[in-house]
């Protein structure tokens, strides 16, 4: 029972992190049809930046803030310099981002070396809290990450469904040409969305660097998680990301906890099974 609850908690809190990681990817794709396959590398870069900031300044919140912001700016530069011109050629853009990912992977290896790091949790958040009903206590910070993910999810949902900007984004998802015909500068909207999506990725990377150790190879791992999440949930849908992260997080953790050797196959089998019935993902739309 204890093991079950513990695994479940691990799964749910990890799902929170996955949601943060994949929401930026899906937000950008939903509006712009641009898939950023350097996503894992962005995540890892944010981890390194925030770790270094926390290491130097001893201020965890500053580390998170700078990690998120610097990735926002970096992502924006990548978009403006490399992607913008080919924005309507989906495949070409995806391939260019893979090239970026290759360069980033080696750049980070050169700058930060092959060691693994983990940002230390601020002291007042580092205790464990008892879970009612079972004997074990659970790290408070992981539960906070889950709440953070829920807050971001609600914030994104409110932003997209209740605000004027959200309305522009929703309209842009359906018909970009019509939106610009209405006098809205859709190019400016694209820029902001790419910035916002990259900030989200940077935020996720900074948080993830505190909950899990990271280093060489983490970029590929988190690219895989995000791809699994958006493929299962349906690319371009925030709700889909929520469902996808829950499934990948919880089922992945149970697989690792109970059948460690087969864990990769179990997640993969789930992916195959879902796609067999819904090739566009659970909440994805057929375009």
């Amino acid at each position, binding site marked *: 029972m204890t093991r079950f609850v513990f695994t479940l908690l691990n799964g749910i809190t990890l799902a929170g992190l996955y949601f943060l990681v994949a929401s930026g990817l899906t937000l950008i794709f939903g509006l712009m049809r641009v*898939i950023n*396959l350097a996503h*894992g590398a962005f995540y890892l870069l944010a981890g390194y930046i925030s770790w270094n900031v926390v290491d130097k300044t001893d201020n965890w919140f500053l580390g998170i803030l700078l990690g998120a912001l610097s990735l926002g700016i970096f992502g924006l530069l990548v978009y403006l310099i*490399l992607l913008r*011109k*080919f924005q309507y050629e*989906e*495949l*070409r853009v*995806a*391939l*260019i981002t*893979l*090239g*970026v*990912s*290759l*360069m980033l*992977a*080696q*750049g980070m290896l*050169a700058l930060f070396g092959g060691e693994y790091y983990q940002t230390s949790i601020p002291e007042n958040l580092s205790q464990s809290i008892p879970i009612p009903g079972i004997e074990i206590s659970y790290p408070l910070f992981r539960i906070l990450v889950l709440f953070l993910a829920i807050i971001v999810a609600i914030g994104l949902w409110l932003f997209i469904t209740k605000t004027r900007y959200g309305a522009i984004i929703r309209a842009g998802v359906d018909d970009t040409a019509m939106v610009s015909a209405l006098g809205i500068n859709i190019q400016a909207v694209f820029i902001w969305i790419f910035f916002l999506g990259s900030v989200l990725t940077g935020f996720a990377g900074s948080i993830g660097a505190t909950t899990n150790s990271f280093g060489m*190879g983490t*970029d*590929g*791992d988190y*690219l*895989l998680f995000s*791809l*699994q999440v*958006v*493929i299962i949930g349906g*690319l371009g849908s925030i709700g889909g990301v929520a469902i996808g992260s829950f499934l990948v997080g919880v089922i992945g953790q149970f697989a*690792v906890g109970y059948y*460690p*050797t*087969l*864990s*990769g*196959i179990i*997640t*993969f089998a789930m*992916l*195959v099974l879902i*796609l*067999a019935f819904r*090739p566009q993902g659970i909440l994805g739309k057929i375009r």
Partner: protein
Amino acid sequence: MTKVRNTYLLLLVVAIAFPYLVPDPDFWVSSGGSRALWLGVTALSMSFLNRNLGLMSLGQLFFSGISGYIVAISSVTYGVKFGTSVPLAILAGTLSGVVIGFIALKTKGVYFLMLTLAVTLGLYSFANSAQEITRGHTGINSIPSPVIFGIDFAYSKPMYYLFLLIAIIIFAFCKFLESTSFGIALKGVRDNEDRMTAMGYRILPLKMIAFVFSAFIASIAGVMGAFYVTNISPDSVGLIRSIDLLVIVVVGGATYLGGAFVGAALIVVFEAIVQDFTQYYVAATGALFIIVLILAPQGLMGISAQFRRARAKKLVAAK
């Protein structure tokens, strides 16, 4: 047509004489020639799919990985003779193409790219975690080379000629397939699925056969890789290797069959040269890739066509 045939003949002669032409044969026959042929066959499985179905697959390393791991595990862990392990590996890799094709062929474009990338990365994470089977991160080392008729293919020249033979047979077979009615139907599917459906073709079986065939090529390449590198580890199917393969295909020219080998040869030479100047040759490859994508998306094989089109455009504009 004769011009094309002459080019092929010339290339064949050069390829056969290659070990006797290069200045530093100890290095270039193995690290240049055999490596380029191995990577070229892997890349060919990808360009075949892209050229005939318009699908860019990052799943080829999955098939290569499956067959490579099976050769490695059966021969190193269980001591199976390669006469059994090689067909078994190729069969398994090819059959895994049926499973992947079943889900991946429902998608197109970037979705297909993403899905196949996820499949390959999934194998990476499996290979990393399933320690009892794959020996985890260290991988499986010292895979024995095959010995056929007393010829030990561990030596660089026999291996090179074996690889050359395999590459020629596969390349010729791809060319042959494209000339059959099956190959022409494939191009029809690539260009307009709806029209082909209206004409009474069943699309999915056509796509499936092409996909499984490309998995078959990739599986052969996986065996070649296992014998060439003599070890296999999760990194053999990791993100960087997947992108490396993509670089080869795109730089050579993703819509040309020969592009796979042109790209492989170019990248092998490029890395060998850049390696002398900087240890960050992977980043240099990435930069080269982005430059090619921006300036010449049709790759090296497509450059002359690109120039011709640009000149034609200019002429039209001038008139």
